[in-house]
């Protein structure tokens, strides 16, 4: 066996790689490193617009995508990066995570650029609650997703003569009709966050905005343990009876496909579902319709993707501010959100480029913002911190899967929230 030559080759190649690895890389004048989980076709391509914009200003974009688990893998990576003293310039982040990192003192102060561009005047207050900490801007919001939508197959609704339901009773009647006609009434994927997304809508519709505030945001034990909460769980159980047997573990986009293909009547899902319809060549208003979760008309539960800016020291500041400014520019906000299915995070962007559902989303957002009915979505981490959110997930998903009856679920909910605080 020519082992020596084998070993020599191994050592030589290792040495070569060492040389390549250590070769000094050409330092660009300015650069930003961005950690995010937008890696699927449309949204990644839309982010490329931002990259090109920055490169036009002489700032190099270093891309650090880590997908998986709705950003949870990226958050793990972020912890390692911050612990190592090597944080990225900007990190895609949701809701309470931004505030938690700000409390650790890890984020930068964007007040100079925010004041210069007047962010205070154009970003809804409900978003500022997450984008500012202790009076300082710490992150740049990219979009607003709204989660209390229902997506329905128009052919099925037309065939059965169903109008878009506006109340719980109308919803149940519609679902009965769809099920009786042999379709799956609700296309649903059995993953905790999807069940929580439905829970958002049902809770808002059953208890109204005040109850939503008390239970999901203030986490008031009286509201969590109330009879209204029991009704919410009862309604979840009712909805469960319209879901097919095979729902467990299904990805949300496969549930959307059931609506697209005419196997199922409707899906309760955030506005990102629209992308699936459009990609399948379906027209809003023609092939599918979108309406608010019945009983939540005029109310919006939202989540907002933001880029939290990490403290990177003086030499990185100028590039970071250029990035923040580019994210907040109306042209990027429009271009990105048209693709993503969400709506811009500032209220002064023209709706010209958006389709029907997008225009409606922007109008709803502006109205809800003006009327004070814009609330952070519990299911998407904009109502309570991650520990509480997941504790509620545990109860909602256990109940939906038949482990608890509604009375037990209410009890467990109070305990779980208390234990997670």
């Amino acid at each position, binding site marked *: 066996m020519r082992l020596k030559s084998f070993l020599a080759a191994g050592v030589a190649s290792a040495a070569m790689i060492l040389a390549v690895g250590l070769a000094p890389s050409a330092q660009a004048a300015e650069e930003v490193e961005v950690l995010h989980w937008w890696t699927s076709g449309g949204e990644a391509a839309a982010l490329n617009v931002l990259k090109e914009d920055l490169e036009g200003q002489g700032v190099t974009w270093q891309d650090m995508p880590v997908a998986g688990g709705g950003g949870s893998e990226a958050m793990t990576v972020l*912890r390692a990066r911050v612990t190592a003293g090597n944080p990225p310039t900007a990190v895609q982040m949701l809701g309470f995570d931004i505030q*938690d*990192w700000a409390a650790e003192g890890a984020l930068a102060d964007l007040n100079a650029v925010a004041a210069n561009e007047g962010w205070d005047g154009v970003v809804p207050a409900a978003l500022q609650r997450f984008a500012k900490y202790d009076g300082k801007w710490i992150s740049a919001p990219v979009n607003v997703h709204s989660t209390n939508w229902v997506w329905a197959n128009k052919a099925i609704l037309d065939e059965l003569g169903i109008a878009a339901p506006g109340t719980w009773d109308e919803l149940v009647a519609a679902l009965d009709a769809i099920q009786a006609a042999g379709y799956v009434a609700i296309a649903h994927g059995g993953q905790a966050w999807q069940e929580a997304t439905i829970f958002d809508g049902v809770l808002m519709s059953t208890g109204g905005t005040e109850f939503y505030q008390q239970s999901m945001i203030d986490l008031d034990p009286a509201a969590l343990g109330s009879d209204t909460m029991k009704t919410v769980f009862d309604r979840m159980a009712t909805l469960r009876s319209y879901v097919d047997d*095979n729902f467990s*573990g299904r990805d949300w986009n496969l549930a959307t496909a059931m609506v697209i293909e005419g196997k199922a009547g409707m899906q309760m899902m955030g506005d990102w579902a629209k992308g699936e319809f459009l990609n399948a060549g379906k027209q809003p208003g023609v092939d599918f319709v979108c309406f608010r979760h019945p009983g939540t008309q005029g109310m919006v539960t939202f989540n907002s993707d933001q880029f939290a800016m990490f403290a990177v020291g003086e030499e990185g500041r100028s590039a970071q501010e250029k990035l923040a400014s580019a994210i907040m520019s109306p042209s990027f906000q429009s271009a990105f959100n048209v693709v993503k299915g969400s709506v811009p995070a500032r209220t002064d962007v023209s709706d010209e480029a958006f389709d029907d559902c997008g225009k409606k989303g922007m109008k709803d957002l502006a109205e809800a913002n003006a009327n004070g009915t814009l609330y952070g979505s519990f299911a998407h981490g904009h109502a309570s911190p991650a520990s509480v959110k*997941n504790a509620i997930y545990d109860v909602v998903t256990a109940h939906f*899967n038949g482990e608890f009856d509604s009375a037990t679920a209410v009890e467990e909910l109070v305990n779980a929230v208390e*234990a997670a605080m």
Partner: protein
Amino acid sequence: MEYGRYLRGWAQQALPRLVLAPSFATIVLFVYGFIVFTAYLSFTNSRILPKFNLIGFENYEKLFGLRHWSTAIENLVIFGGLYIAICTAIGLTLAILLDQKIRAEGVLRPLYLYPMALSFIVTGTAWKWFLDPGIGLEQTLQSWGWASFEFDWIKNRQMAIYTIVIAAVWQTSGFVMAIFLAGLRGIDNEIIKAAQIDGASNLRLYARIIIPQLRPAFLSAFVVLAHMAIKSYDLVVALTGGGPGRATEMPATFMYSYTFTRNQMGIGAGSAVIMLMMIAAVIVPYLYAELREPRHGR
């Protein structure tokens, strides 16, 4: 016997230990140091990043009050027991069958081994499809005419944990086969021939003479399987994501989610300490049994 007296000079005497020292030192720091660090964190109220103010046993109290921590432990017992037993049984059977002068051994062996080479990031999707009653095995067999066939375990709270066993066995049983095959090939043929002359049947031959000689292989297989069972993370995430509900949660997924997703690092560290104690309970007796025979004088 001491070799030292053959050696000239102190440098030559110390060299072996100097060669070993860096490896040992890194392991002391990167394994035992980190274990101590984790144990310390489990007594703090760390949430998003490590914090160092002690709060006593609060995290452990919370941990054992959590319903799905007990689910996770139960699942580990069910999964671990079945996984180790089935892998060992299949691995041993395949090894014995392959050891019968099989012509196609060179083709079959890599077929049995290759699953170890694949990452579960995507293999999980293939398994998920296969087990899904709507598009997988159930639907396929029904469309081929077996209308009454049902296989919906992955959607069933009580049965889902067993589907994880199926996929896990798929991944590792070939590797266990390799360990046993190596063990079988190492047995002295003279013993087997002597038994055959005595008229022993094949069944008796294996049960009484060959399998008892595989003791080291059984132990190797057990350790590899036990540590894979305790560390099983990718598999659960890819197949069920811990669902339906939280029915297939395991200690490894539990620890990851509390440490990194739920921002309750203290509780996550507590579950890690319990996990390490479980690992030690399995591994330390093995190491003791394997290493206790004195080898001096060789």
